[in-house]
């Protein structure tokens, strides 16, 4: 229970840091925040108009008071208005609209990459030093050096333009199809981004699993299991993998914070309607509230993923069940 409260405090701290970054960043950058809000139009605005804007955004109040107001708004789920949509859309609305697409891409590719990467890592570890290990390792070396967005830029002309196997971008056809056809359509659109994301996540899973299995396969209890005459597959998967799962998933989740954001660039290439592409569009239109909202949502996603992983620990390791 003590462990739990400490972790909860850490998660809260991270969240608090993220929202504070969102608050202080625009105020720390040299220059008047009004210029950021009004953009190129700032010089043309009269003095009264600027004063009115300042009051509207609460910029005339002291910093501590501004911060309290900001926190209060946040507690009400108010992240401000997006600049980009002239009709006026709140940031939260835009985020909710886009998030499911990112969740679809990241969720599917995360699970598949973990599964595939781990399987290859185990294979590599059992064949340590021979040509299969070397081949897989070289493949992963090269894969790690390839910018994923470039891979995406090569898949589109080949699979979408030349052969018309798959759609070149977007998350669904317009007009949208009905029922079962719609499901197939969404899958076809998600296929290429998911493939690229799997290739981007896979090396991390592979490397971690390979290293973990190396250590485990040399340990005494594995030697005992072998000596008992158990078949190799049983030894590796039942005795070895069982003990590797916890450290592997823990290390993978630590690295995933760095990996998750990569979806931004992939979505931008495919014009996919997720948070990443939304941020790419927001860069072009200098839509600061939207960018801040995107960053906050990514942070929350990572924290939730971390919490889910921690909740899985007792399932993965029976030794942890007793203490809970």
């Amino acid at each position: 229970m003590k462990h739990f409260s400490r972790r909860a405090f850490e998660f809260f701290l991270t969240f608090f840091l993220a929202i504070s970054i969102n608050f202080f960043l625009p105020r720390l950058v040299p220059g008047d925040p009004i210029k950021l809000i009004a953009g190129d139009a700032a010089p043309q605005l009269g003095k009264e108009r600027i004063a009115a804007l300042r009051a509207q955004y609460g910029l005339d109040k002291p910093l501590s008071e501004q911060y309290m107001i900001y926190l209060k708004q946040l507690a009400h789920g108010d992240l401000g208005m997006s600049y980009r949509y002239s009709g006026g859309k709140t940031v939260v609305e835009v985020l909710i609209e886009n998030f499911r697409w990112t969740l679809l891409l990241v969720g599917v590719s995360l699970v598949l990459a973990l599964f595939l990467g781990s399987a290859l890592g185990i294979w590599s570890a059992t064949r340590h030093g021979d040509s299969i290990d070397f081949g897989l390792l070289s493949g992963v070396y090269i894969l790690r050096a390839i910018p994923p967005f470039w891979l995406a830029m090569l898949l589109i002309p080949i699979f979408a333009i030349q052969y018309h196997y798959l759609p070149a971008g977007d998350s669904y056809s317009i007009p949208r199809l009905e029922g079962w056809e719609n499901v197939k359509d969404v899958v076809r659109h998600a296929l290429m981004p998911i493939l690229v994301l799997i290739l981007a996540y896979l090396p991390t899973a592979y490397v971690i699993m390979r290293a973990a299995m190396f250590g485990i396969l040399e340990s005494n209890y594995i030697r005992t299991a072998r000596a008992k005459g158990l078949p190799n597959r049983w030894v590796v998967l039942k005795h070895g993998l069982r003990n590797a799962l916890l450290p592997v998933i823990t290390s993978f989740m630590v690295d995933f914070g760095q990996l998750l954001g990569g979806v931004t660039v992939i979505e931008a290439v495919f014009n996919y309607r997720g948070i990443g592409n939304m941020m790419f569009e927001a860069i072009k239109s200098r839509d600061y509230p939207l960018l801040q909202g995107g960053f906050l949502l990514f942070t929350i996603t990572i924290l939730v993923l971390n919490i889910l992983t921690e909740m899985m620990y007792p399932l993965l390791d029976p030794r942890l069940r007793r203490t809970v």
Partner: protein
Amino acid sequence: MKARTLANLSQYPFPSRRLARIAGWSGMFVLTLMLVFAFFPGAIAPYDATKSVALPLQKPGKGNILGTNDLGQDLFSELIAGTRASLLTGVIVSFMAVFIGTLVGLTSGYLGGWVDSLLMRVTDLILVLPFLPLVILISVYLGPSQRNIIIVLSIFFWAGPARLIRAQVLSTRSDTYIEAARALGANPLQIMVGHLWSSVRPLAFVQIVLVASASILAESSLSFLGLGDPSGKSWGTMLFFARASGAFISDAWKWWVLPTGLMITLTVLSLGLIGYSIEQRMVRSA
């Protein structure tokens, strides 16, 4: 015990010593080539990459081996000119990041106590925050430029090296020679600079190479998103303009997108190979 710690740090053990050597030297070869491109672009590139020399969006032909971009600039010359931005970003970011990382790692590992908890808490926070979205957010506020990309990447890339160096310090801090130095009355600063530094130096050196490789990859992503210097020449920016002018919907991807990404891949790979093969030597000699 020491060998064990270092071996655990190596995520990419090579199957054999010979292969590690081959990998290291081929990495050195490619890197040397890139350095030549970066220092003497004029000797290789046929044109000034910032001048329009032909009609825009030309296919590869006699005058232009890889055709021209949307402004009529020679793509091959642009490719060569882009080397400098990538390598420069890699070098500066890696030195700054590893410098900060070493400072934090040494202090945290040797002093321990509340200093250690505080520094490691900060390191963990940086590692858990979503890297690219935050970097995008900061870069947009700072404005698009190569310098800002370098600053932002340096802020984030020190955390990984700091953790590794702290781990190494923890494993050496109770060695006899450190105890001896302490018994002789050396203050923490003398121990950190004079003794511990020499034990983490090889690790820091490997980290410089690996962080350089990672930051070149990150720089290309940021430039591709339009956060690089729009008039400067870099591979990421080239891909940004390739996308903007629809290069991968036409045949132009073959001479515009393909070679540009290949240059990024080769540079990142060469640094990676050098880093891992040095690391391998360290593990074996430890």
